[in-house]
């Protein structure tokens, strides 16, 4: 708000003037505080006239004040409705802010209003209101787009109906059931992964460290991760470990997935990953780890913490790994990328895609394409020697890559 920026200066100017004004006003009768509009209007008129007489800058003066009378006379609502209720007061405040051009929503529900009132500080209120404002704007834009699309579609349909009157006889090999076919194929692949796939664990034990907003983000990212995994040629067998029944995570999953929750092709368990797998084959992925991941190992179990950390609490996942005495690794972002801005913590879906890509190709350049472009300025030059070394490694891997069944040993142990 540029309006208030200069306030600090203004006060120094006002004071000397006020000193002049005080003797002039003091000898008048002290007014009752709750002055009605009329009284207030009359009283305010007196100094105004005084002012105009004294200054009398331009002949337009009287004309200039004209708008005030209309403004005052056109009373919209009864002033007597003095709202003692904080809920309505808040609602009115938000409305006035909107008139002022601040970023607040136009419509606000009772529930949201309650959340606004529960915000402890002024800045948190403003932040929440801005969030609602942006949300409302997005919704409106989407609505408009939808309407436009519907209109265009209707128009196109009319045209098609007009033009394609003749020759409906054509030969097709397939019916148009692509989506369903794809779903079924992905389902088959998913079942295969459940039996023979390499485990990828999401550790859900971070719900205590997150606020509801972060929890929501985490669940969205997990949903996306699961989607990417499902579409892959060779999906992971995803585990959600430490997922307590009726925890916020669990409830949110059921809300987001709906009826599908029980038909999903991954393992959700209350058990910990250390109970399911041998400890020495677990690698906990965390950006705080001192060890850098060099290659993707097909016989290891990678664990990703499902944790969106907006509060900057470093070292929590590393502490978790330390507590259970697990190996840790971080992605070699600095080795391959010219890092620019942003944290090294990537979103869960980015990690999943990087891991999937590594699993299929083993190439870091290819895999790190999923790191957001804004975070780095480009790939680092890798010397010829290391390039060759990497190629050799890749070749040897393809020769004696693990037969799929070998991963099943963990299952048998259980």
């Amino acid at each position, binding site marked *: 708000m*540029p*309006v*208030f920026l*200069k*306030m600090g*200066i*203004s*006060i120094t*100017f*006002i*004071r000397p*003037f*006020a000193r002049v*004004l*005080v003797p002039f*006003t*003091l000898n*008048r009768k002290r*007014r009752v*505080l709750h002055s009605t*509009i009329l009284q*207030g209007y009359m*009283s*305010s008129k007196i*100094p*105004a006239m*005084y002012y105009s007489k004294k200054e009398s*800058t*331009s002949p*337009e003066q009287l*004309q*200039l*004040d*004209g*708008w*005030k009378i*209309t*403004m*005052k*006379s*056109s*009373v919209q*609502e009864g*002033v007597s*409705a003095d*709202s003692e209720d*904080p809920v309505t*007061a808040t609602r*009115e*405040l938000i409305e*006035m802010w909107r*008139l*002022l*051009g601040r970023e607040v929503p136009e419509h606000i529900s009772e529930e949201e209003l309650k959340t606004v009132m529960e915000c402890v500080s*002024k800045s948190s209120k403003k932040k929440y209101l801005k969030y609602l404002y942006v949300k409302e704007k997005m919704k409106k834009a989407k609505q408009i787009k939808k309407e436009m699309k519907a209109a265009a579609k209707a128009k196109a349909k009319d045209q098609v109906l007009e033009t394609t009157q003749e020759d409906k006889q054509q030969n097709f090999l397939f019916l148009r059931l692509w989506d369903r076919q794809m779903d079924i194929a992905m389902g088959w692949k998913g079942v295969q992964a459940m039996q023979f796939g390499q485990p990828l664990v999401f550790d859900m034990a971070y719900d205590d460290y997150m606020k509801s907003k972060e929890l929501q983000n985490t669940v969205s990212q997990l949903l996306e991760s699961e989607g990417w995994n499902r579409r892959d040629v060779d999906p992971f067998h995803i585990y959600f470990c430490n997922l307590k029944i009726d925890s916020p995570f669990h409830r949110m999953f059921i809300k987001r997935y709906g009826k599908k929750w029980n038909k999903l092709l991954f393992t959700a368990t209350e058990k910990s990953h250390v109970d399911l797998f041998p400890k020495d084959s677990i690698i906990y992925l965390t950006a705080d780890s*001192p060890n850098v991941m060099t290659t993707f190992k097909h016989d290891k179990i990678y664990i990703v913490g499902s944790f969106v950390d907006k509060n900057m609490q470093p070292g*929590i996942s*590393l*502490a978790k790994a*330390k507590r259970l005495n697990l190996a840790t690794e971080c992605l070699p972002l600095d080795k391959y990328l010219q890092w620019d801005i942003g944290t090294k913590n990537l979103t869960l879906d980015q990690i999943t895609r990087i891991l999937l890509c590594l699993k299929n190709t083993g190439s870091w350049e290819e895999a790190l394409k999923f790191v957001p472009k804004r975070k780095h300025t480009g790939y680092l030059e890798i010397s010829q020697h290391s390039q060759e070394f990497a190629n050799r490694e890749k070749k040897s891997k393809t020769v004696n890559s693990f037969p799929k069944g070998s991963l099943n040993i963990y299952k048998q142990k259980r």
Partner: protein
Amino acid sequence: MMMFCFTSIRSFPKLWKNNPYLGGGPGHSYNSLFLKDYYGIRNQQKLFSLKTASPQNTKAVSLLAAKARYRRKGDEGSNKVSSEFPHLFAAGAAKKRSQMNPQSKDHALPPERNIIQLPTKPLNSEQWDKLKEDFKGKADFENWIISQMIRQSSSVDVAKSLLAWVATKNNGIVSYNLLVKYLYLCVFHKQTSEVFDVYEIMKARYKSLESGGSTLLIRGLIHSDRWREALLLLEDMKKVMTPSIKNYNDCIQGALLHQDVNIAWNLYQELLGHNLIPMMETLKAFFDFGKDIKDDQYSNKLLDILLYLRNNKLYPGESFAHSIKTWFESVPGEQWKGQFTTIQKSGQCLGCGKTIESIHLSPEEYEFLKRKIMSDVIDGGDQYKKTTPQELTRFQNFVKYCPPFDIVLDGLNVAKMFPKARESQVLLDVVSQLAKQNLRVLVLGRKHMIMPSARWRKDEMEKVQKQASCFFADNISEDDPFLLYATLHSGNHCKFITKDLLRDHKACLPDAKTQRLFFKWQQGHQLAIISRCPGSKITFQDILSYDTVVQTTGDSWHIPYDEDLLERCSYEVPTRWLCLHQKT
């Protein structure tokens, strides 16, 4: 000539701020040189902004300021040692450090705007219509032009003619945000009658006001005889949210202006009750007003304010310090005498020779801090975050079975101080120099330091281990918390050496009071190495022996204050003092 210059550059507040420094300096003649060329106004602004943005110029300006400051110091015959290396926590030291390794960051020039010459006289409707046609921009014209008027503080009449024009176009309706911006101009130009009018309009049209409008109204009303209505506005604001400290400031100033002391104090109490930190202006107003009041109760309340400053480690500004001085000197019958001074290194006030309070903590405070460091900084709810339980017990046993140390050294911080020298060499130098003075030294480090490598030679590390006790933490553990605990455990005489300001550890402490305690302890126990070349004997920065805080002995007051021209970081303390004592 100069007047012209000032009006053309008003929109660059930075230059305004710097202007006092420039007086008579080389920069001055430079500016006027440009003015002699008859550029258009826009070009001049460009040149000005370029000039202010260039790093050399700002540096020159700040150098001038620094020079002025040290000259002043020299005049009073104070210690000159600190001029080369200001104390780690002395006000302005961070700024100075940052200038030692300059990273010139070019300030982006303000984007070119489409410039409409703002009217200087009230316009009629046709003229406004024409102006609107000339305007090409995304924003709403009325809104944009009144914002520009605010920026250049146009006269109220011009704004009023704009509003009149808007009203005629719009069936006599002026939107709320135009009204608020107009109100801003009225308040800025102290047009009280206009403020009343806008207030009536707002009361008539809107059921309630929002915080921005209320703030302006409060500010506009307090100088008039209707100042009590400002208090009602404040009450209205309280329904939805806590008013800001500025609102309270305005109301208190208004109450004092109208001689209503009780309301002012009540508002002040309310302000404290909301856990807000009052503006220095508010406190200054109480002192300024106190000059005319001869009342014990009032005086006691002013002393309470000083104690509030003490308890919250707040420092008055320069003008506030002057107000305090004037008030003390105006107290009848007590004959206070005040002077602005500095404190000697020994902790004696140059003005009266009294010793300033010691920096050392009381035994209770010390125990409290030790407990808090252990529970919040090292443990922090999860021992695995900074260390491991095994390591923690190993460390605690180690500290327990060693006799108290004199010096605890952050091995990695010290060793990395001189990037050109070998790490183990530097560490050995420092340790052997300390050991020669018969000090019991503890070196804290990480395990990788004892793995022989090019940077950490085995023989040198062995020598270090012979001359000092060593504790090596895991490579992924943090060593600073151990440093803090070992120092605290050894007792009050023990010092620690690191250049780290330990701000992240201070931030782990739960509340402001503990953080202040930590800071006080840190000031009293942290040694920083200041010698720059590794070959020479290593010298340490002196530890302050006195605490920089508002303090009294009954018949004297010592009040540190911030100089107006000096920027102080939150972890630095002022160096200038106001010394007040009673003539006997």
